[in-house]
């Protein structure tokens, strides 16, 4: 760290280098922190999280009971201890609230004044953040599993919506109408993502175990489907369609630069694809337990040198090296299935929401002071923890209490 800093001051290094090194270190030291809490608003499972990209300050969460909450993540109190306050809530009492489980929430990528939510009550609502009232409402034939808006699109403001219907809907926010339908899938679409690199490129994952990439300018059909066997004709010949997984494909995520695409399926596999060619990179992540019948929201870190992908895995969140495929860390804190996670790219913080109603913040641990003397390890650690948790609690709670009678 000091080396990086001095090199940076001397101007020897690219500024990106220091940044990358530090963010990677932080990424690898994520832990459940006592200092950061998130208000418990949800009385039911948390289905989705989204942190806005403009300031990185507000986070949206959608609950299984139809509640949508906006949190303020920024800690201006100057203290270590901080609880993320809910700044806005669309509760059950609100007459605009979704009737059923909110499946996806997303900020409008360029402004926090608007966000979009979709739900199992077959609607997608466009909300005004200030008034917390829907500005527009799209009604569909079936449950809405997912929607996504391109984070970079300047030329269009299309929302891709995956519903129970195998046809992908494209809704235009400008006109407030459903303008387009993309046909190709044979079963409901569980996940949809716009490419962060090309504004017209779109990837969809479906129950029919295929993943298709689309160019919205081309109406005739998908660009290609991902093939887990990489076009190995001996196997593919028998099958009419290329499949990405052997089960449902329920998770989809582009890497930060949009060059790669990560998919998860109910065959307990995670695959990394080259998003431009559709080639399976054959990274072996091992078994990624996945029993979700709905879409799975997972996140890929950005701006770190070995990027990580955070995948909910039962009641824990597993962090895999994106290209190496090795398990970097397992974050255990939830007491029930984890449904979603979102990565804060600026602070390298991870927020996870699960069925136990909790939203947990995983904060990089502070680097402890380097230790020379081995005998003081425990005391120092205790002291560090004490400084983190407050002196009173630390003194009583972190000390061993061997009674003297045992001597």
């Amino acid at each position, binding site marked *: 760290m000091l080396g990086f800093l001095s090199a940076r001051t001397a101007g020897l290094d690219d500024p990106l280098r220091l940044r990358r090194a530090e963010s990677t270190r932080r990424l690898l030291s994520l832990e459940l922190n006592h200092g950061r809490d998130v208000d418990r608003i949800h*009385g039911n499972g948390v289905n989705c999280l989204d942190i806005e990209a403009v300031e990185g300050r507000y986070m949206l969460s959608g609950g299984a009971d139809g509640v949508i909450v906006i949190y303020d993540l920024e800690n201006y109190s100057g203290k270590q201890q901080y609880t993320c306050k809910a700044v806005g809530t669309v509760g059950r009492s609100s007459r605009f609230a979704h009737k059923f489980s909110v499946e996806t929430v997303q900020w409008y990528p360029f402004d926090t004044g608007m966000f979009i939510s979709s739900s199992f009550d077959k609607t997608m609502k466009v909300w005004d953040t200030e008034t917390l009232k829907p500005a527009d409402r799209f009604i569909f034939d079936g449950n809405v599993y997912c929607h996504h808006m391109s984070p970079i699109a300047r030329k269009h403001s299309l929302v891709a919506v995956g519903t129970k219907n195998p046809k992908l809907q494209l809704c235009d926010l400008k006109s407030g109408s459903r303008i387009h339908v993309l046909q190709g899938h044979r079963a409901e679409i569980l996940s949809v993502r716009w490419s962060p690199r090309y504004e017209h490129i779109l990837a969809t994952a479906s129950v029919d175990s295929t993943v298709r990439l689309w160019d919205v300018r081309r109406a005739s059909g998908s660009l290609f489907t991902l093939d887990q066997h990489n076009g190995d004709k001996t196997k593919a010949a028998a099958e009419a369609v290329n499949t990405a997984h052997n089960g449902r494909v329920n998770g989809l995520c582009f890497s930060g630069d949009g060059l790669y695409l990560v998919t998860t399926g109910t065959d307990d596999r995670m695959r990394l694809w080259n998003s431009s060619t559709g080639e399976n990179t054959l990274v072996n992540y091992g078994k990624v337990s996945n029993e979700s019948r709905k879409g799975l929201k997972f996140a890929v870190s950005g701006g770190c040198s070995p990027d990580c992908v955070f995948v909910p895995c039962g009641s824990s969140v597993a962090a895999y090296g994106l290209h190496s495929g090795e398990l970097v860390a397992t974050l255990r804190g939830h*007491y029930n299935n984890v449904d979603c996670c979102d990565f804060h790219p600026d602070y390298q913080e991870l927020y996870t929401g699960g069925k136990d109603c*909790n939203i947990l913040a995983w904060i990089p641990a502070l680097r402890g002071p380097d230790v020379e003397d081995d005998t003081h390890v*425990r005391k120092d650690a205790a002291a560090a923890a004490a400084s983190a948790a407050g002196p009173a609690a630390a003194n009583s709670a972190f000390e*061993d209490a061997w009674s003297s009678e045992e*001597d």
Partner: protein
Amino acid sequence: MDLAQRDKLSELVEELTTSGQQQLNQEKMKEIKKICKLSNDYVDHVYHSVMAQLDKEHAEIRLSAFQIASELFSRSHQFRTRLVDNFQEFLELTVETDSDQPLPPPKEVAKKLKISAIKTVQSWQATYGSAYKKLALGYHFLKHVKKVDFNDVEARTVAERTQVEERQRRMERIYRDRVETAAQEMEESYQEIETTVTEMKSCLELLLPDEFGLSDQLSFGDVALGSLEPAHRHRLEDELPCTSQSLTAEGALWKEMEENRGSNERREEEYEKKCLDPRMEKKPSPETVVMEGTAIKTNQDCEGKEADGDEEETEMDDVPDEDVFIRNSGLISHSYNLNISVESDLQVKETEDNEAVVSTLIDLHRLITTKHLPAVESWVQVFTKIGPEQQQLLRRALDLKNTLAFLLKKEKLLHIDYKTRIRKVTRVAAEGEEDDEDEDDFEEVPEKEGFEPHIPDHLREEYGLEPLPSTAAAPTNQRSPPKRLAPLVSPTPSSSFAARRMKRRLEEERDPTCAAATLHLLKGQMRPCTGPSTSVSSEPPGAPPSTAEGSQTASSTSSVGDKAPDAPIVPFGLDLYYWGQKQPNAGKIIKSTSQHRFWVPNEVDEETENQEVLAESRNRYISFPGKFTPVSHHCNASLGNGKLCPRQDRVKCPFHGVIIPRDAQGQPSRAEDRVREELEEMRRRKMHPEWQDVELMQDIEAATGEDLGSQRLLGKGKGRGKGKGKSKQKYPNLSDLKKSADTSRSRLEKKVFNKSSMRRVTAVMNKIDGRKHEKFSNQFNYALN
């Protein structure tokens, strides 16, 4: 870290967790703590072994492991960190947060584990919650997601609570339904029961009118009901003042009786009759006296009245009457005390007069005991379950029940003599309703037509004949010894009673319209017909075969009488058949030399005489297997409990071998036998030392898990028959999970799902299928089904 210490730690943890105790052994726990205090590495090690034990599928292991964990949790920071890091799993294993992983059996221990775990988590949260975030999260999870109510002692989650409520509601609904149906049923059959009760009452009244103060004894039961409906109560109240009535009635009866007594010689008979009369005098029983205050007085009054009655009566009688009375009765004085000991219970005898009433009573009794009383009892049960809102129904049902029970009691008090009329009742019942009675009640009687010359001995009484003096002379065989007919005059006409009877009969015989005359005539006819066949008896027919007759006759009679039953009855052969004649075809064999129908060679003798066959036909074989003599000796071997073997085998006792003479102690009386027995005993001892009680050994083995060799002692046949034998139990202190509960379900399962019955069922099913196939295989529309 010392390896020995480490191993010791693991050992201690395992010992503690497999002890099966509800509480930890404090010494061992202290030792663990002592070791853990040395270094955090030991704590880690303990943590791992505790978690491993927590994962075991046995609630007792888990409970102990949990107790260790909770002990260490409050001591060591390291342990806390470790445990909290893995708090999800810990909760899953102790609080059952994952419904897919229920706590293992045994159930009670699992419940205890859960409750204590929840309590402990709460206390941990209170102490360490602020410091360990995951602990707080876990607590929150339990509280808000699993909705565990930490104040609820039962430690039930919401789901369980709702389940219990649901079950309660369902049970309530069921009860309500039942009450409704029962109420309806009661409404429907109330009338019927009422009529039955009334009928029963009137029957009882008819049998035993109230004048004997019976009702006051019995009606107190009625009064005890207290809560009968108004009409019923009214009736009871009508009955109540009967104490005084009955008293006067009693007095009247006494008078009447005394008059009878004074009238004539019939008095005695009358008196006798009175005693046997169904209308028995009734003194209030002691229990009544206790129950009812007035009853004591009644009793005394009764005595007084009795005396009064006597005096009055004697005074009232005229002198000539008095003389007659004295003469006829043979009593010395008029002033006597009559002590009548009357049993406290009644005895009603059934006669022709009250036959109908009694049979109705029996029917009613059966109706009440089989139908009404069970029904009423079930209603009472149903009504008591539902609670206070059905008080009225309950009261009504209880009233009914009491009434019925009271009636039954009353009826029982009468002690009606049913036995004499069982046949009649069944006949009546059978005529009335065929479905009610079994056919068993009818005896199979051989059909008879007209006159029967031979009357079986046991039936002679029925026919009005005197019993035969000798049963040996039963008319079984015409040829066999002389049948002595019943003497007309009884050989020992000692009693005057018998004399009177004889006289009466003789008178009757003279009357041609009487059945006795006909019988007499028949007897006269029978005598000559049996007379000639009796070769031995030379007595004049009808005379009693008394010893006072000629000695020769007596001896011959007795000799025949002695021999007759001894002599075997042998089926006679051909030789007897042709006794004294030449047997026509004896020993001749007919030969047909030619098989042809027409062509017969003429010089062939068709009949050949065979001497052997001839001799055979003259011979006769009488097989006489000897006499069965019952075994009179006992085995008499000592049984060890001070008794002797009571078996009576002829040669060999299955338990003690060949039967040999023994003394009173069961020891063989012959020396060589004694030696042999001792040798055998020695050999047995060597194989089976006496201290090795097989059953006790099995118990010990089950308890300690060590093999003491009970299998070997049990013998090869039994021990090996069970298969490989159970493997040594690893932790004998823990309760055995595999031991299947002896439920009705398991017993049924054992029966239903055992191999042979399954095979049998399959065979039958296959057969049915096969038959169907055979029948319908050629018909396409059946082929598809």
